[in-house]
Structures are given as structure tokens and as C-alpha cells.
């Protein structure tokens, strides 16, 4: 059970959070201008690194805010977090 540092509520149990996958995958500016492949990359392709990974978390059972955190997927260490997702 991770102890996740919510920027608003402080360190809380992982069970209070929902995982939101890779961070910094923005909704495309103009989806209509994308090729099928580019759109498919947005929809379906995500990184899966061993090591540092920027990812999104939502404090669902707390303040309900989204934030980003950099977690080391090999050690589960949370190294940094950002308030704006």
C-alpha cells in the first residue's frame, strides 16, 4: 500500500486514490487534423518504463483533485509531484 503525497491533503493511503495512467498525454489540439495512426497513438499507446514514470493520480476518496507524480516503477518511490495535471 503506497503512501501517496496528495498536494492538498498530504500523505494518504493508496486505497483513497484512482490511478490515471501516463501523464502529459494531452488531448490533441485538433483531432480532425490527425491521421488515423496519430489518433490511434493518442488513444491506445502509452509508455511502460522500468524506472521513472510521470503519471496521473486522482484523490478520489479525498479532495477529488487530479495531480501528477513521478514514480519509480521499479521501487515504487514517488520522487516528485505537480499540482496541475
Amino acid at each position, binding site marked *: 500500500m503506497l*503512501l501517496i503525497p496528495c498536494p492538498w491533503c498530504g500523505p494518504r493511503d493508496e486505497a483513497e486514490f484512482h490511478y490515471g495512467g501516463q501523464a502529459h498525454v494531452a*488531448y490533441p489540439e485538433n*483531432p480532425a487534423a490527425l491521421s488515423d495512426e496519430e489518433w490511434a497513438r493518442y488513444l491506445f499507446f502509452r509508455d511502460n518504463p522500468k524506472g521513472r514514470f510521470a503519471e496521473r493520480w486522482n484523490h478520489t476518496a479525498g479532495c477529488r483533485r487530479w495531480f501528477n507524480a513521478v514514480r519509480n516503477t521499479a521501487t515504487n518511490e514517488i520522487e516528485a509531484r505537480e499540482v496541475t495535471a
Partner: protein
Amino acid sequence: MTSRRMTGWQGEPVRFRFDGRDYEGVRGDTLASALLANGVRTVAASPALGRPRGIYAAWTEEPNALVRYGVEPMAQATTLDLAEGLDATSLRGRGRLSEEPDTGRYDAVYAHCDVLVVGAGPAGIAAATAAAETGARVIIADDRPIAGGSLPDTAETVGGVPGAEWAAATLAALDDRPDVRVLSRTSVFGYYDDNHLVAVERRGVDAYSRERVWRIRARRVVLATGAHERPIAFAGNDRPGVMLAASARAYVNRHGVLPGERAVVFTTNDSAYAAARDLAAAGVEIAAIVDTRETAGPAPDGAEVLAGHVVTAVGGEEGVTSVTVSASDREDRDDREIEADLLLVSGGWNPLVHLFSQAGGELRHDDGIGSFVPGSVRQAVEVAGAARGVFTLAGCLEDGAAAGARAAEAAGFRVESVFETPGTPAEEPAAPAGHLWLVPSADYGTHFVDLQRDVTVADVMKATGAGLRSVEHVKRYTTAGTAHDQGKLSGVLTSAVVGHALGLPLADLGTTTFRAPYVPVGFATLAGRDRGALHDPVRTTSLHEWHVVYGAPFENVGQWKRPWYYPRAGEDMEAAVLRECHAVRTAVGAMDASTLGKIDVQGPDAAEFLDRIYTNMMSTLKVGAIRYGVMCRPDGMVFDDGTVIRLADDRFLVTTTTGNAAAVLDWMEEWLQTEWPQLRVYCTSVTEHWATVALAGPGSRDVLAGLAPGLAVDAASFPFMTWRDTEVAGLAARVCRISFSGELAYEINVNAWDGLALWEAVMGTGVVTPYGTETMHVLRAEKGYPIVGQDTDGTVTPADLGMDWVVSKKKPDFIGKRSFARADTSRPDRKHLVGLLPADAGRLLPEGAHLVETSTLPEPPVPTLGHVTSSYRSAVLDSTFALALVSGGRDRMGEVLYVPLGDEQVPVTVTSHILYDPEGARRDG
């Protein structure tokens, strides 16, 4: 039966039964010590080979002595408190769950502390004391009924008093401190991320709750978990009467029980000599000490020491009668048979690194002790005492005190005074231990590695012979280490035997992964109070009691209990639903629709927001009007549907499906926070603020008119898809003219606390038939209205549902739009929602049934065209019918397809998914 209890050992007698025979033990016994005291040697048959087995150890590492009693399917006799009237039977073969429910009460506790100490042996007690001295909040957990770790087993003294007394007094003093909690009989069994540890406290059958799970978050952890003596693999090492040396010592000192009369000791190290001395002092004759080292230790009085010898055979099918020893590695082997009924074994000591390893710690091979010790670790944990290879009493006390102080300091506390460890008797420095894992032999068929899994050295060699080189693979191939004891004794031994077979050093092989739980934990314990009615929250509407009184069975929809149907006397479900459907189609019915999700969406940008979230246009909706809408995921698949009510320019009320309400709110908040933070929109769940009564049927207008005299109900004044605020039955109400049945219908919303009054007023008219969710499902299916999550499954687009009209062509973008231009979403063979009419109008198709093209099944694999998503009997169609997702379904109208059911191919005709009133003539009554 001879008593093996030491003369003069005091104890209140306790009567018990084992395998149908009556015995007597004393209070403080475990079942194992009581059985040994009664001279019972064979306590189990091994699961695979059926070989007789005896008690081998004295605590949780016991591999053999498994019993069942009461509802407990599998317990270790070595940890089971002897209670008056205990009736246990040995487990022969596999465990079997009891047929009886476990009526015990189980609880959970959440706790936080600065320093958690695991283990209350000398090192743990010293650590807890040192940490507590700094003012840190300390929890110390120990799994035994009597604290002190090995002290009660060895009868060593601390500070001039018996070790067990010192331990009890020191812990009592700790427990008196306000910031210290002492948990006894508490096994820490799991070590998870960020110092989250889970323990089970065994409080006994007389306690309010029999067991409690502790979930502890600690700033720092000190693991003082001790060490296990390790076995040696030799021929016949599984015979009843073969026992770990320190365990035999524990039975003598802790329980006053002599595990045999005449013992041979087989050892690689000095620790067994102390065991031999204690046994000799208690009256066990030590026939010989067989030491694998060439330089043997000092013999206890009268015992012969055979240096450089090993045990090569054990006589006695039902228990040790003799031990054959031989000079190891010598050409002129002179086998010698020694008469004995007890064979004590010590292959050295394995530090208990299980929790450390679970914490993500790396293990290091220590050549001195011939085993693995804690190496580096990321988590905030210290290891102290025998758990890191410190095997002297004085060393453990000092090591523990230092670790406790370090932990408190790291948690932010100042160490002001050095905790002074109490004095211990001088110990002879131990001679270097020898390392022998298995006695070489031509036949390894009875050299047991894992007693509980009946795995021998021969089995391990079969695995390595098959090319397996990793201990993880060997574990899975042989099952060594997979029993209830999780390889406590067999794990490192298995690695060593693999190393022997492959000619590799143990250090290179490592161990298999240590996993939680360290000790077996009951599912009932883990479930705690979350069983039965408390398993999941139950949500009920404000009308619930009425449904109960009127005998409705309930359907679970998410956490909601929804009335399913209202059977009258003598009616079964089918009859009740047909009657309710008939009432709605011909007169008027009412349903509790309060569970629909409701989200209040407001703010200056609310209309723009809904335009982006829904596939259709919501910004053009007029205040006072209602629109049906569909939400998709960016991949274009339907996510939810419902109605949108415009309350004001900047305010909407959105309804969602019952089961999806929370997910839709999360979805909206996610987009608002992460993609469109510039939109000024606020979403609030108001599901439980409202009670909603759906009034449906051609007679609904008259009923509403009677209840709401102030409301103009004619079709021109109150058109379809509009809403009005008014009074219904004297209650402030919002009435929406929407229909989920195709009939003239209204949804009357009132404050939740007025719900029952509204419902009773509706029922008080005497003309309204209550109907449940099943009738609602039939009525909507007759009209081809899909239920998201039943007729859709996350692979279905609005177009697949025949709802192209709900997808805006005008909006520049909305969630999902780009995906409707993907090649995949316009394939002609996509699965479309269609209706099915069975050739036999009485044949009800099972939901989930597949559809095929041919009347006889071809050779497998049989291509499926799709499946039935909804299936009902219809009063108004006078037939059964179904909805189905069928490949290219809209191009198959009138085609006959087949549903394979058992040996049958049931013919069905494909029709439009709208089976009733396709013109929509009934909507205005």
C-alpha cells in the same frame, strides 16, 4: 501411555482429544507439546507419500504436525494453544474447508507509529526500549503467547533473572508508557510499500473478536525476527522422532516435556551442544553427538562425540529406533548403528529475512553462517539480532538497542541517553560452524528437503536434470516451499541442494522470492466485519420500506437495492411481470426511479462543457426542455446515456444510468480538471437529494392531473421532453415528461424525504400498478432502448446501436468524434443492435447465447455472429423476443439465424431492435 512430562513440572490439567483418543496436558501447552508429553510420536501422514510423520519443530516453522478442529481446516499443532475440550484430528492428505460457516467475530485496526518493532526477543525488546526512551511512539509486536523470543526455549538469564521473566517485566514496563503499545500473539505477516505492515492478533475464542488484523503505517521499522534452525537432508530424515535440536530444547525448557528418552544429536555447529546439555540435565540420555566438523565441541557429561561423522540412515518405520552414523568422506567408512528414539538435527541457522525481503530488501550470502542475511534496502527499516546473523545473547541485546535508537533518531527523535543493556552470562565464543546441507548418498529417495510437500533431494535433482537452473523454476517444478509453511525450513535448503546438483555456490543461486503472508491467515480474519450485510454498502431509496412491505424481491444494481417485481398471491415472477407490463401498456403503472444518477452541472461554461462531453448538441437546449444524450469515450465507444434538463442558462441537471453515476461524475471532473481547467463549470452529485417516481401508461395523464391540479397536463401545454415545477400531492415537485417505455409517461421528482408521501399518494389513487425493474427492462427492450452495460460492453458505438441521430454533425469536436472517422468504426460487419424473434414464440433465449449462420454447426472453430444481450417474454408481442449484437445485423433483416443451445440449433428471425410501436404513436397518450 508413559508421561514424558518432567518430574515436578506444575500446571493446571487440561483434557483434550486427538484422533479420537483422550489425553491430558497442562495449561500453557501447545497441542504439540501435550502430544509429546503423552508420548505420541506419529501425528500425521505425509500428503503425497503417506509416510508417518512426527513433530519436527516447536513453532510456526513446523512442517508436519497439521491438524483440524472445529471449523478450522488446517492448524499447526505447534502453535495451537491447548484448550479444555479441544478435539483435534490429524490432517491426513489435503486440508478441507469446513461445511459450517465460521461464526467467529473478526476485526481490523489501523495504527500509526514512529517505530514498529517486530519480534519481542532480546533484540526486539532492547530496540523497543531504546526507541521508547526517546519519546517516539512505539509498537512492538510479538507472535508468541510468552515474550522473549528464544529466551524461554534456552532458559538463559538476563540481568540475573530468567530471560522470560526479564522479557515479561521489561515489556510490562514498556506497555505502561503512554506512547508504547505491546501486541502479543500478533504475527506481522506482510511488509508492503512505504512501511505499511499487516499483522494478525490472535486474541482467543473468549475475546470480543477472536482475531484482529492490524494495518500499521510506521515511520521506521526494526525487524528483530530471529532465526530458524535449518535441517540437513539425509536418508530417513523424515521419521517421527527426528526433530530440530533447538526445538527439542524448547520442549524441555518451555513445556517441561522430554521429546524422547535416548537421543543422538547430529550437528554442524555449537548450538546443538547447548541443546544436548539441557536435554541431558532434564533426563534425556544423549547417546552420541555426531558433529560434521573434524574439530568437535566439548561433550556434555557422558556423551560420546563423533567428530567428522554424519548420519547415513535412520531405523524404524513408525519412528526412530536407531541411527546409523558413519565417518564422513572417509574411504574406510565404518557404519555404526546407535540405538535411540530421538534424533536431534542442527544444520546451522537461517536468519528470518522474510519480512525484510518482502520490504524489497536485497539479501547477501554470509559465508560465516552459510546463509542469507539482509543487504541493502530502500525502505526505512533496520534489522537487529539473529535476523541479521548475530547469534549471541549479549550481541542481540546490544544490536537491538542500537537499532532502536537509530530508528527513533531517523524518525526525528533525539537520543539523549544510551540505553544500557542488561548483563548476560559469559558465553564461550562459538567455534566456526560447518556447512553441510545434505549427506552424500547413492540414493536420495528419502533425503527430504520439504517434508510437507514430500520433496526429496532426488526430486530436486530430477528438476536440475531436466535443465532447470533457477531456484524459482525448481520450486515450481517440485512444489518445494509452496506448502502452508512457505518453505520456512525448506527454502534455503532447496537452494543449497540445487547448488550441490549444479556445482554452483549457494551465494550465486539466492533464494526464491519471499511473499506474504509469513504465517497462514484465515480468509475470515482478512474479511473482518466486511461479511454478509456489511460486505458492501447497501443503498436504498426513500421508498424502500414500501417495496419491502409489498413483497418485492430486490435486484442489485451497483450498491442499490431496486424492487424487481411485485408478486401478488400465487404469482411467480413471469406472471407478475406480464401483468405489470400489461398494466403499463393499457392503463398506468408507477416505478421507483430514484436510483438514477443525477448530477447538477452549473457555471457560465456549463453548456459548452456539455457540448464537449455529449455526442449531441446540448447548448441549443431551451430552459424548460429536456434532451436525451449519449457520452462516449475518446475511442468512440458508448460510455453512458441519460437525459439532460436545462434549469437555467448556466445550469443543467444531468441524469446517468444507476450503476454509472459515480463514474460519470469522475469523468466530468477529470476533463474539467485535466483538459479544460479554463471552463467555469461545477459538478455536484445530487442523486440522493431527489426521490423520483416514474408514472407510465396511457392513464398517466389523468393520474397526474388528479394529483397536480395546478398543472396544465394536456399535450400542448406540457409537451414531450419538457419539465415543469409544480405541486404534486401537495409536495413541491419537478415533473419531467420523458418516457422509457414508449408510453405517455412522467417522472415526478420530489425531495427525498417527501418520496414516500408522493408514492403513497400515487398508489392512493387506486388505479396505478406498481412495477419493478424487470417490467421496466421489458418495456424499454420492446422499444429497442439499449441499457448501457447490458446491451453495450465498451465496444459499441452509437451507430452500432442505430443511434446515428444522437451524434452531432455540426459540432467541431466532442469526446469520441474523431474516432467515428476511423476505418474500424465504419466497417460494414460491425455488430449492430437488432431484435430477434424465436420461431417458437414460447422459447426464451438465454442472455449471452451466441448466434451462428447455419442450422448445423460446422467443424470448430465455429464463427460467431454475435450474442444475445437482453431476452424477455412480451405480453404485447405475445411472444418472447431478444435484443442482440449481430455482425452486420441491420443488413440481415428477415434472415433466420441460429442459437446453439446444447444439442439444439434454435432458429430466430432478425428484426429491427424496435419491436413495438415503431412510429412512436403512443408517446402522447
